[in-house]
């Protein structure tokens, strides 16, 4: 189980926000949503808080897909390799100075190394790491590592998970248990769909990889996929030497045809009967097709396991997009009217 999904300082901050709003409501005797004891200020406060949380949660999605599409703003920081090499050479000389005992403390080494990076103009791309050669050793080694200016997407995932969860609670405080209008029901409904599918998603993403790994005892999903594609190419190549009619019969043997083992044997016998002089070739091809079918079955089984922990997104993502649109309409309408 991937427990790192649940370990983040954002959990603390998200909890403080939720508990803070709850305490405010309790101390002021304020009921959630619109009701006899509702408070306009609290509704606005919880509404703006929910909106900010939604934006923070959406930032993860934007960030992730921007990166996958090659639109990361950090790409603008790219430096040329000539500058990197200048820094590498200078760091190498620095390492030799360290080895000769001229520089002894990590602070001094770090300071010298940072100067090198700055002079080479790569300080925004790489930072220095000063480490002991062996744990507890007083011999030091210096190297460059990427700065990762906006933090890894895995950290943004924590933001998504914890503020997304907090969003559900804040939404409840904002809308109350019974929203007052059809649009209110739509907003709240979408919000809770996103919230609950998200909760399911967190659980499944924490547990699901284990299910797949256990199922992958013979073949990993990546290997099965590559093997299936490779066998398909080999089959197509082998079939291409036969006439179109025979090729069509062979295709009836394939994994996608749904033919049972008995039906396959009948088809194979039929082809053998038609072309008795190519017996060995046909049997080899038959074996290849059956192998392809078995790999396909395995691949499908693995894909089903993967789908079991990925399918929640089919609901979560469209609902989240609709919610974002509905929230935009809600905010604009409140703002204007």
């Amino acid at each position, binding site marked *: 189980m*991937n427990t790192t999904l649940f370990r983040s300082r954002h959990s603390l901050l998200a909890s403080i926000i939720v508990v803070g709003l709850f305490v405010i409501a309790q101390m002021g005797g304020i009921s959630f949503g619109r009701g006899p004891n509702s408070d306009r200020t609290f509704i606005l406060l919880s509404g703006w808080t929910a909106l900010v949380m939604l934006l923070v949660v959406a930032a993860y999605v934007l960030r992730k897909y921007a*990166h*996958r599409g090659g639109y*990361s703003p950090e*790409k603008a920081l790219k430096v040329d390799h*000539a500058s990197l090499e200048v820094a590498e050479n200078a760091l190498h000389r620095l390492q030799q100075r*360290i080895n000769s005992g001229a520089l002894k403390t990590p602070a001094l080494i770090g300071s010298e190394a940072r100067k090198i990076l700055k002079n080479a103009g790569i300080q925004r*791309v790489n930072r220095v790491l000063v480490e002991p050669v062996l744990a507890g050793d007083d011999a030091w080694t210096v190297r460059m590592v990427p700065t990762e200016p906006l933090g890894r997407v895995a950290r943004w995932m924590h933001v998504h998970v914890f503020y997304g969860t907090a969003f559900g609670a804040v939404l409840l405080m904002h809308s109350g248990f019974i929203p007052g209008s059809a649009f209110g029901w739509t907003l709240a409904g979408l919000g809770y769909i996103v919230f609950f599918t998200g909760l399911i998603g967190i659980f499944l993403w924490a547990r699901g990889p284990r299910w797949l790994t256990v199922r992958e005892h013979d073949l990993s999903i990546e290997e099965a996929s590559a093997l299936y594609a490779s066998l398909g190419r080999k089959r197509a190549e082998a079939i291409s030497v036969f006439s179109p009619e025979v090729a069509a019969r062979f295709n009836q043997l394939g994994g996608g045809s749904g033919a049972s083992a008995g039906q396959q044997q009948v088809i194979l016998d039929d082809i053998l009967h038609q072309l008795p002089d190519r017996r060995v070739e046909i049997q080899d091809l038959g074996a290849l097709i059956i192998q392809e079918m078995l790999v396909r079955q395995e691949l499908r089984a693995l894909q089903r396991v993967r789908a079991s922990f990925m399918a929640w997104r089919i609901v979560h993502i469209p609902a989240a997009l609709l919610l974002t649109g509905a929230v935009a309409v809600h905010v604009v309408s409140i703002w204007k009217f």
Partner: protein
Amino acid sequence: MDSSEAQTPSLLELPLFSKLTKRHQTSLVKFAQQRVFPAGTDFIRQGEYTSDFFIVLSGIVTAYRTEKGGKTEILDQFSENEWFGELSALSNQPAMARYKADLPCVLAVLDGALFQELYSFAPDFKKQVDQIYRERSLAQHLRVVPLLKGLDKGLLSTLREAARFESHPKDSVIAAQGERASEIVLVRSGGLSKTRKSVQGVEELAGYLMANSSFGEWALLDGEGDWKSTYKTLMPTEILALPVAAIREIFSGQPEIIDRLRKTARLIAAEDQGIDTSLYDVEDTQSTDEQLEIMVHSESIKGGEALVIDLEKCVRCNACVESCVAVHEDGVPRLSKKGKRVSAEGNALGKELSLTTSCYSCETPGCMMSCTYGAIRRDSHGLIRFVWDNCVGCAECVKGCPYDVIRLTAPPDPEAAAATSWVSSLPLIGKFLDPLQGSAPIPQADRGYHREQVVQGKAVKCDRCEGLPFEACVYNCPCGAIERMSPALIFDQSLLEMATNKIEEPQ
């Protein structure tokens, strides 16, 4: 640095090349490069993996070696018409020293492939190189042999003349089990497999010996001088044979040295049978059979760090591969998730892991060895890097890589090059949004190792997103499942267990 293919006519007039055939002269003129280094340039760093052979055409080059304790000494100095780099060119081993241009220098550079061609087929060139190697580096190289480790430089020098150089093609049997062993063998380059026949007569793999390993020390022990295993080359291999008779003769007047050598040989023989593991120091354990076995069979690495996926965390969303594609203009991914699985019991971290199919920077890089154009080098951290200028897209490295991590990019398409991305045609914001922006050629690096250019029709592999402030696959994994990790972290425990199981009680 300036790098050009222009040749000074004097190169062919050097004694080193005076007896080359017409064909080799043509190769030399065509492929040798001339490089100019300003005074003060460190053009080879200690520990850097290089296969280049250098001839000083003008200027002075000094080799500085920094010892483990931090002490730096001048190892050698080279002036006009002198050469260096034969050890690395022969063995793909890390440079033993830092080479610095003391004065402005003009150097002729023969890449590994050209050097190997001349060394293999031009006997006079080989003779001269071997002579210099014998005089200059052999004594140092002999120190690698555990048997000779304790001997001082003077004694090692006396052994130089007895050494015999041999080149063997792939699959040659260097020594057969049961035959009389009469020499100690040092592997200069390449690699060997060591197999033993079991009592049932079945040939069993007992280990591997890579460059700088040695065997045959027990030949010094009376009555135990048969080969205990069969040694067969895994690839073209250069060896150095030291006849035991010559060793005995050289030290005939010094019985205490013979005694000492025998004592050490006995320890090594015991080591070979799995009795003692304390003989090799930390550096040598890199080459022990256990490490190599893991390296070969578990696809571990020596240089750099492995790209490891924690299968307990990976949701198979493919973000790593997609991010990799997104940061490389050619659209070719540098990693595949299809890699070796390591069970939770089989590694020190106790997690189900997958070693992705991404460059392992192998101890014996098959890609570098199969590249005949000098387009692949190792840097001082052991990382394999491409020299794009030299790459012709022949795909030999693709075949040479045992882990299928090298891919070829599509050849340049003039029509596609002329077309502009629709994103860039957007008014005002187009040029900021276009992901292809920034791919324009940038001036080359000072040593020409990392010339920046759009790579088309050439071999590519993981470059760790050099120049960017992140490593795309690691940076964009939503679950934090993929990490760079030292193989020592992953396999130490397994190695320990293997070693423990292998050690038997002395009889």
